[in-house]
């Protein structure tokens, strides 16, 4: 009987709870971002609806759900609807391999990191399809920019993570967390961490690498023609992306759920929140580079550095066998 209960908890309740928690976290991080940006800019931010404006998210949700569900008559209708679904699904699936705490993990893939890379390489479709199906110049321009940016930064995102794989000798995220019992990988892989951080910001196209949505140049980029919940899905997808990258940074470089005194899950949430706040700080503090600078930075500097990092890490691991 207890086995049966355990199966129910592990197989059904945990995934559903994680899903709901992620949705809530994604929705409320929009509130968090607005409040904290306002605070750093000496403004108030949303503070009218509910205590501290916490219910602003609910108000936004009601508004976004009751907006006109507009599919432009000039758009490619099927692709137009599929595109925002892809980004949500891919970002959510990314969380499946994250070890939140010992035992709290949806999928125990041995090749978790490869699964993650596959997911991140598929998420580019949502942007390309959104831009293509909109049949609008700004959407197409934004989509091409985003796609080129994501492709450029995806190459060395994988290579940056491989430094960790060399040290931990496993693709499995839970094994990587366990390997950090004595020392966080940020110490062994500082260069890899920065490479992954840059790649992560560019992949989730957040400021300062938010050129795809540079309002001053190309309106809203690939989602110019989107309205209602379909726009909302891109929006939540972006925030889920930020949380996913933060959770990955925590898992790969900062010991995951490991930490003294506090329960593991709390440690994980604390570390992840720290990086979410860091992403928001970046948006408040750093101006946007030019597009050609962004591409040059990726290809000229970060890609060779990622390759070099890999070689140096391997040599360091192999050195004792000489």
């Amino acid at each position: 009987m207890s086995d049966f209960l355990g199966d129910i908890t592990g197989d059904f309740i945990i995934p559903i709870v994680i899903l709901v928690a992620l949705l809530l976290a994604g929705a409320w991080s929009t509130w968090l971002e607005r409040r904290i940006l306002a605070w750093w800019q000496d403004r108030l931010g949303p503070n009218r609806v509910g205590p501290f404006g916490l219910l602003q998210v609910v108000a936004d949700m009601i508004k976004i759900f009751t907006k006109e569900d507009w599919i432009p008559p000039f758009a490619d209708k099927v692709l137009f609807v599929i595109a925002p679904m892809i980004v949500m699904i891919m970002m959510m699936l990314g969380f499946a391999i994250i070890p939140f705490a010992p035992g709290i993990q949806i999928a125990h893939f041995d090749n978790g990191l490869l699964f993650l890379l596959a997911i991140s390489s598929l998420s580019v479709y949502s942007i390309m399809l959104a831009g293509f199906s909109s049949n609008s110049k700004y959407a197409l321009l934004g989509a091409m920019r985003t796609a080129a940016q994501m492709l450029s930064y995806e190459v060395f995102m994988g290579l940056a993570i491989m430094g960790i794989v060399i040290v931990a000798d496993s693709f499995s995220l839970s094994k990587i967390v366990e390997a950090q019992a004595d020392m966080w990988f940020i110490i062994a892989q500082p260069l890899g961490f920065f490479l992954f951080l840059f790649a992560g910001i560019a992949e989730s196209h957040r400021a300062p690498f938010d050129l795809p949505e540079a309002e001053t140049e190309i309106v809203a980029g690939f989602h110019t023609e989107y309205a209602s919940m379909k726009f909302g899905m891109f929006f939540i997808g972006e925030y889920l992306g930020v949380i996913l990258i933060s959770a990955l940074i925590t898992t790969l470089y900062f010991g995951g759920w490991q930490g003294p005194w506090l329960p593991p899950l709390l440690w994980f949430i604390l570390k992840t929140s720290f990086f979410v706040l860091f992403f928001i700080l970046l948006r408040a503090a750093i101006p946007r580079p030019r597009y050609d600078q962004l591409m040059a930075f990726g290809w000229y500097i970060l890609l060779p550095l990622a390759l070099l990092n890999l070689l140096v890490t391997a040599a360091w691991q192999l050195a004792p066998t000489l």
Partner: protein
Amino acid sequence: MISTSFLVYLIAVLLLTMTMLLVSHLLNPKTGKRVNKLPYESGIVPSGTTDIRWNVNYFLVAISFVIFDLEAVFLYIWSIVVMEAGWQGFIITSFFIFALLIGLFYEVRQGAFDWGKKQGGIE
């Protein structure tokens, strides 16, 4: 193999996204005739088509991505067997990376990633 929890999660995610779109579709307010049958171009009447002449650099970025992604796949395999492959594997991989770095260097010298500059072409 695939665990039940992953399948449950996958189905839940799919259902969730579809429900979100469906609910928003059901709550869709009916509006009468509108003039929004044109692409948004900051409020002015749109001009031209989406038939844009693109910079060839976009193509170069895409093709370099494919090539370096393939390279990365070899390095993914190597990174899990660094210890087993030993120094011999290290030398092979160094050669591999070196060859691709030459390619990258050549590409950079040819101006593949110089966006917005006037391109001279090959002499």
